[in-house]
C-alpha cells in the first residue's frame, strides 16, 4: 500500500530527531572511552583547580613559627578545654549558641552577596535572617533548616574580592586564628564594619560585653575547629602544607560557587 506524504515530513522527522538528541545530550555522551592507566597518571588538568588554588607564601618562615605556636595551643590548651566544654554544655545548648552567632553574622554574608551582585542569595539570606530572628527566637533556633531554598552558600567580602578578580596576594597564619591571605584578611576587616558586635560600627556599646560575646562565640566554635584541624593534620605528612593547600582550594571553590 502506498500513501502520499508531504515533502516537509522527512525534514520534520529529522528536526525532531535533532531536538531529541540535543535534549539528551548529556545522557548520550559516548562513555565508552576507556583510559589506559598511563593516561590517568599524567598531569591532565583534572588535578582540580590546581592553578587557581595556588597561593604565594613569601612569609613561610614566620608562618611556620605561628603554625607551630597555634598547633601547640590547639593541642595543649584548646583541645583539653573543648573536651570539658562539650562534656559540660549540652549539645542542644551549643547548637543554639552557634545558631545565635551565625544569625548575627547575617550582615557579613549579605554584604558578601551584594558585592558579588548575587541578589537572589542576598534575598535568601534576608529571608533566613528574618525567620530565624522572629520564629527562631532571636536566632537560637534555625527555623529554616528544612527549607532548601533558604540555604544559600555562605558569602563573605573576601569571596567578593575573589570574584572581582583579586588574587590572594600572599598567605599568612594568624596567631590563634589560623590561615588567611592578604585578600581575605582585608575582607575580614571590611566585614567588621557591618558586624553588629565588632568595632568600629558596633551596636554593643560596652567593651566588656563585646569581649564576652566574642569569647562565647569563639569558645563555642572551638570543638568544630579542633575537629577540622585534627582531621586535616591527622593524615597529613606535612601538616603546614596540607592546611595551606586546603585553605587555598577551599577558598577557590567558594569563590567559584
Amino acid at each position, binding site marked *: 500500500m502506498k*500513501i502520499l506524504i508531504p515533502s516537509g515530513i522527512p525534514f520534520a522527522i529529522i528536526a525532531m530527531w535533532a531536538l*531529541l538528541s540535543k535534549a539528551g545530550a548529556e545522557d548520550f555522551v559516548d*562513555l565508552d572511552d576507556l583510559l*589506559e592507566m598511563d593516561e590517568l597518571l599524567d598531569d591532565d588538568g*583534572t*588535578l*582540580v583547580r590546581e592553578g587557581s588554588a595556588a597561593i604565594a607564601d613569601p612569609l613561610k618562615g614566620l608562618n611556620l613559627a605561628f603554625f607551630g605556636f597555634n598547633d601547640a595551643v590547639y593541642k595543649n590548651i584548646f583541645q583539653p578545654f573543648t573536651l570539658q566544654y562539650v562534656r559540660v554544655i549540652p549539645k542542644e545548648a551549643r547548637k543554639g549558641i552557634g545558631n545565635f552567632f551565625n544569625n548575627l553574622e547575617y550582615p557579613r554574608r549579605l554584604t558578601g552577596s551584594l558585592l558579588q551582585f548575587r541578589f537572589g542569595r542576598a534575598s535568601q539570606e534576608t529571608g533566613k535572617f528574618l525567620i530565624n530572628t522572629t520564629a527562631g527566637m532571636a536566632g537560637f533556633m534555625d527555623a529554616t533548616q528544612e527549607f532548601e531554598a533558604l540555604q544559600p552558600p555562605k558569602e563573605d567580602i573576601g569571596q567578593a574580592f575573589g570574584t572581582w578578580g583579586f588574587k590572594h596576594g600572599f598567605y599568612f597564619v594568624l596567631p590563634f586564628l589560623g590561615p588567611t591571605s592578604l585578600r581575605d584578611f582585608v575582607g575580614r576587616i571590611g566585614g567588621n564594619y557591618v558586624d553588629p558586635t565588632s568595632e568600629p560600627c558596633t551596636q554593643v556599646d560596652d567593651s566588656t560585653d563585646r569581649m564576652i560575646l566574642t569569647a562565647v562565640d569563639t569558645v563555642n566554635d572551638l570543638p568544630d575547629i579542633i575537629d577540622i584541624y585534627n582531621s586535616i593534620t591527622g593524615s597529613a605528612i606535612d601538616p603546614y602544607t596540607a592546611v595551606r593547600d586546603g585553605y587555598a582550594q577551599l577558598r577557590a571553590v567558594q569563590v567559584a560557587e
Partner: protein
Amino acid sequence: MNSFSIRSLFAILLLTVTPLPNLRSNDLDHTKDALEFTLNRLLDVLHASHSNAPYSDKKDRIIGILDQQFSFDVIIQRSLGRNWNKLNDSQKDQVYTLITDLVLQSYTRELQDGPRPELTFYKPKVITSSKIEIESIVLLDESKINISYRLANIKDRGWQVYDVLVEGISMVSNYRKQFDEHFLKKSASELIDLLKTKLQEA
C-alpha cells in the same frame, strides 16, 4: 510530493521518536548505585557490634570492600606525581601500603565515631567521555559534609575512583603539594620513616 510505504514510515518513526535506550545514563546510575553500595558496606563494617576493634583488625575487610571501586594505586601514584619515580620498587611497595593505611585509618575512624552517618548520592556529572564525578552528602551527627568522588573508566577495571574531594578539596591535589614539599629537601627513605611514625601516632 514523495511517497513512502507505511512500513518505511513506521521504521523511521520508531528510530527517531521512540526514546533511544538510555544505556549511557543507566550505566552511570549503575556506577553511582555501586559506589553507594560499596560505601554502605564500609559503614556496615565500621558500625558492626564489634566496631571498637582497632583498624588493624578490620583492615583486610575494609580494603577488600573499597578495592572494588577505589584504585588506590592510581590515587597514590597521582598523589606522588613526578616524585613516584624517585622511589625504588621496594620503596614504592612500602609507600603504597603505608599511605593506604594512614589515609584509611584516619578517615574510617571519623566515620566510625558517633552514630552511623547517612549517605545521599546525586546524579553523576560527566567530566569527559571517560571521567565522571559523583557528589554526595554525608550527614554526620547533624553536620553536612560534601564529598565528591571522581571516577575514570579504566581499561580492564571499569569505573574506578581516582580522587576524592571533601568540601571541594581534592585529596590527590592536597597530597601532591605535601609530597612536592617533602621531596624538595628530604628523601624517599625519610618519607617512609615519617609515614611509619605517623601510623604509630594515629
